[in-house]
């Protein structure tokens, strides 16, 4: 005889995400409408007090979202939010002359070049809870796994996308830099195309 176990009810939240108000760029007010995609809430209202252990959303190899809860172990934060280093910063070089700095250990005719990284405008970027794609998260693809996957971080090559499932395609935004103008493309669009692979390309054709 086995104890009858009630299957757990699937948690469904009936609460609706409500629009919220914020002030950007100092004075202009803006209404932000959160959206929920594949269980991930985008443009959610930030918490009053910043929480270092706030869960964040990472992506599986095939692009499915997964929630990561940071932990504190031995005084260190494990699985914390990824550090984007300077990938989304703009590098500016300043050249200072002796007149500008009047440093005591500087020759009168010496020039000092300093590189400064300017943070990007995170007004809208901060509303995205999903990990952003940086070259650190690239993977190797191709038959010999020797081709970098730039600009994509997800999905990995040969992933299987199933019908009626939602997957995230993520790419490094600064990869699309216009050669002529040197500016990053402000708009992009995603394409899905059919391909036919011959046996050789599939890699199972030996002779």
């Amino acid at each position: 005889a086995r104890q009858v176990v009630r299957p757990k009810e699937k948690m469904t939240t009936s609460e609706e995400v409500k629009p919220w108000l914020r002030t950007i760029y100092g004075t202009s007010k803006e209404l932000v409408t959160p959206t929920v995609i594949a269980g991930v809430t985008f443009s959610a209202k930030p918490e009053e007090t910043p929480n270092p252990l706030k869960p964040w959303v990472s992506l599986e190899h095939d692009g499915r979202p997964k929630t990561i809860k940071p932990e504190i172990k031995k005084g260190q934060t494990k699985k914390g939010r990824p550090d984007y280093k300077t990938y989304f910063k703009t590098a500016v070089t300043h050249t200072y002359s002796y007149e500008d700095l009047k440093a005591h250990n500087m020759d009168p005719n010496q020039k000092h070049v300093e590189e400064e990284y300017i943070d990007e405008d995170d007004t809208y970027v901060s509303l995205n809870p999903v990990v952003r794609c940086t070259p650190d998260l690239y993977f190797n693809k191709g038959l010999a796994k020797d081709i970098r996957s730039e600009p994509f971080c997800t999905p990995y090559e040969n992933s299987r996308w199933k019908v009626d499932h939602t997957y995230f395609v993520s790419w490094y935004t600064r990869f699309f830099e216009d050669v002529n103008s040197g500016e990053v493309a402000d708009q992009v669009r995603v394409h899905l195309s059919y391909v036919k692979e011959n046996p050789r390309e599939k890699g199972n054709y030996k002779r």
Partner: protein
Amino acid sequence: DLPGTFFSSEWIDNLNGLMAIEVDEDWLQNEFERRIVVSVQPKYIPDEDFNPLQYGVLLHITKGSRVFKPTKEQLALDDAGITNDQWYYVALSIPTVVVIFFVFMYFFLYVNGKNRDFTDVTRKALNKKRRVLGKFSEMKKFKNMKNHKYTELPSYKKTSKQN
């Protein structure tokens, strides 16, 4: 309008570098699996210059998984004690039948132990062996026997007439 492209999104801001795509069954075109390429076209590259295969990622879109795995619901029902276990009976009954058969065979042989006689079989096998030229003492079966009182007389190949 790109060759082979069956889905193109709107122009979106290249801000987060992220886009959610829900796989539609129509894209499979009544096949179980299709091979696709995911590619991103920046605004400054016109359609005729854009090559999806240059930086695209090769994927499979499939209707589902080929291998049957119990879904969470089925596992939950199992936990609830609601199981359809006909196959369980089948799986158990086969070895049971085999065991019963062997037990029955053992007792049958045990009961008939007294009235069994295989001498005709052994004789036929030995006759077959005896046709081999050479001494008994050299046969594999008798090689290690030590109680030879005398050496054998030579034996010849029997012709079919002599049988």
